[in-house]
């Protein structure tokens, strides 16, 4: 593992203290940038990626060759206009696209595997702050994130309140619910049940692809809406390999198109993602509870942005949810917005109508473009 990927890299000047009490030494952050940084460094936009995302937000993925994961949003003349903004997107620690994670070498020159410390969303953001420090960027024009990226954006705002002027959190939550944790646990158990997992010590040998694929399949269902799945697949059957059109096999091949689709998603995922990273990142998301970090009251997490903020350096917030997202439903966004209101922080919130479930933030939703553009430019 630990492929050498074509990315910019920065080794943090200090060891990274973690929420667990452990310390992560020699942290490397792999990142991409798009657009020129202004002389006053005031046009930097940080985009935080989701669970299985990466730094290739607007450039093709070096393994899959697919376009950047948010190319519809980021680029010259686009909503996040790289003719105007210096866009930074970094791989989070714990991941597997060049930043320090379980596949990286520990001090004994062997991969960490499960010796990698359990990290939190705040630890990921610590890594990002280290990157910004290294790049000399004191205050971001905007920090943007969807899903787990939104958690990072909120965590950055809560813990480093003067590091961003605008915080845009999309399809996200301030805490993982029991249902969120439950789905993640299914994925983790699938990986750990794969005989190739070997307690996480599989680097250099066969990787737990079957388990990781099942984890991805289960998670993928949560990213789509029932309406979307029904429209895309319904109960339609696959054509058989021998050319027979849409008949049941009376066996356990992928008869239904939805089965075939999920298998394809699962196996494709194993080509580009490390199973141990999946364990660590889902764990970080499950541990996420922004209120808990701030004495149990979410409004206190945003105290640096409110009425009592005397330094005038607080951020403006924009929270966006989608009506078909049942992974992080609108109620979670409202919860965040109510806390921001209670803290007196300037906040916009809108629930957009889109048929694609949680994945709506990545897909073609014109209203999302308008709201984001208005917020970023405002």
């Amino acid at each position, binding site marked *: 593992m630990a492929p050498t990927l074509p990315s910019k890299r920065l080794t943090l000047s200090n060891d990274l203290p973690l929420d667990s009490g452990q310390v992560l030494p020699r942290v490397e952050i792999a990142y991409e940038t798009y657009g020129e940084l202004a002389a006053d460094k005031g046009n930097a936009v940080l985009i935080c990626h989701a669970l299985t995302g990466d730094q290739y937000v607007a450039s093709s993925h070096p393994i899959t060759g697919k376009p950047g994961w948010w190319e519809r949003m980021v680029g010259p003349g686009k909503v996040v206009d790289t003719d105007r903004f210096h866009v930074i997107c970094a791989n989070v620690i714990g991941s597997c696209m060049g930043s320090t994670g379980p596949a990286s070498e520990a001090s004994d020159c062997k991969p960490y595997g499960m010796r990698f410390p359990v990290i939190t969303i705040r630890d990921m953001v610590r890594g990002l702050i280290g990157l910004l420090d290294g790049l000399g960027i004191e205050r971001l024009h905007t920090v943007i994130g969807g899903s787990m990226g939104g958690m990072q954006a909120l965590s950055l705002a809560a813990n480093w309140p003067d590091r961003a002027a605008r915080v845009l959190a999309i399809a996200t939550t301030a805490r993982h619910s029991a249902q969120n944790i439950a789905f993640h646990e299914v994925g983790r158990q699938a990986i750990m049940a794969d005989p190739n997992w070997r307690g996480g010590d599989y680097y250099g040998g066969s990787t737990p692809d079957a388990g990781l694929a099942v984890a991805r399949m289960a998670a993928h269902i949560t990213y789509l809406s029932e309406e979307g799945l029904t429209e895309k697949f319904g109960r339609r059957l696959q054509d058989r390999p021998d050319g027979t059109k849409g008949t049941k096999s009376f066996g356990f091949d992928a008869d239904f198109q939805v089965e075939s689709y999920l298998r394809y998603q699962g196996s494709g995922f194993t080509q580009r993602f490390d199973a141990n990273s999946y364990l660590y990142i889902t764990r970080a998301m499950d541990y996420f509870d922004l209120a808990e970090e701030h004495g149990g009251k979410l409004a206190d997490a945003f105290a640096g942005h409110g009425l009592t903020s005397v330094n005038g350096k607080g951020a403006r917030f924009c929270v966006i949810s989608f009506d078909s997202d049942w992974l992080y439903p609108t109620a979670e966004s409202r919860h965040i*917005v109510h806390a921001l*209101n*209670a803290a007196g922080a*300037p*906040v*916009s*919130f809108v629930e957009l109508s889109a048929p694609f479930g949680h994945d709506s933030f990545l897909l073609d939703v014109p*209203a999302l473009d308008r*709201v984001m553009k208005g917020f970023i430019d405002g």
Partner: protein
Amino acid sequence: MAERLRPDLAVIAQNIAPGSRVLDIGCGDGKLMAELVESHGIDARGLEIDPQLVERCVARGLSVVQGDAGSDLANYPDKAFDYAILSQTLQTAARPDRMLDELLRVGRQTFVSFPNFAHWRTRSALMLGGRMPVTRALPVSWYETQNIHHVTIADFRELVAEKGVTVENSWFFSGGHEIGNFAANLRAEFALFQLSRQG
């Protein structure tokens, strides 16, 4: 920007001190907020129930939350704003009296405007026509209207008096113009009150 404001909104804009904090409840497409922010240097926030209107507000750079004034005001701290504004929305509330209490709680001062159901056109439609009025000020039929609690200027004065609320100022409008307060309950299509509550 410089869009023409509805007369009640224009009066509100003229009577808000520069640099103050404002919550516009039922802010619609944000016309008043935009005017306050751009021409008066005011920190304006909005609350609006219609997602498409919220989208338009955010797209023009305003801080607006999609929500229901009937329930979402509870999240704002006491006296969080110098002014709370409720324009042409009171009569759509499930409990206008409670909403008024919430406005006076979150704002040091409150502006409330509403269509006057005792305007002579309304009265004559009911008295002579025997039907629920459909007028310039109340253009929607009884079965479609969002106005579920019609109110007159006299009713409103009585409510605020019962609540011990101070009327700081009042303005009346007809035909798109401000009119005097003589026989306002008969002559005014719309009323605007500036209120405050001590303590």
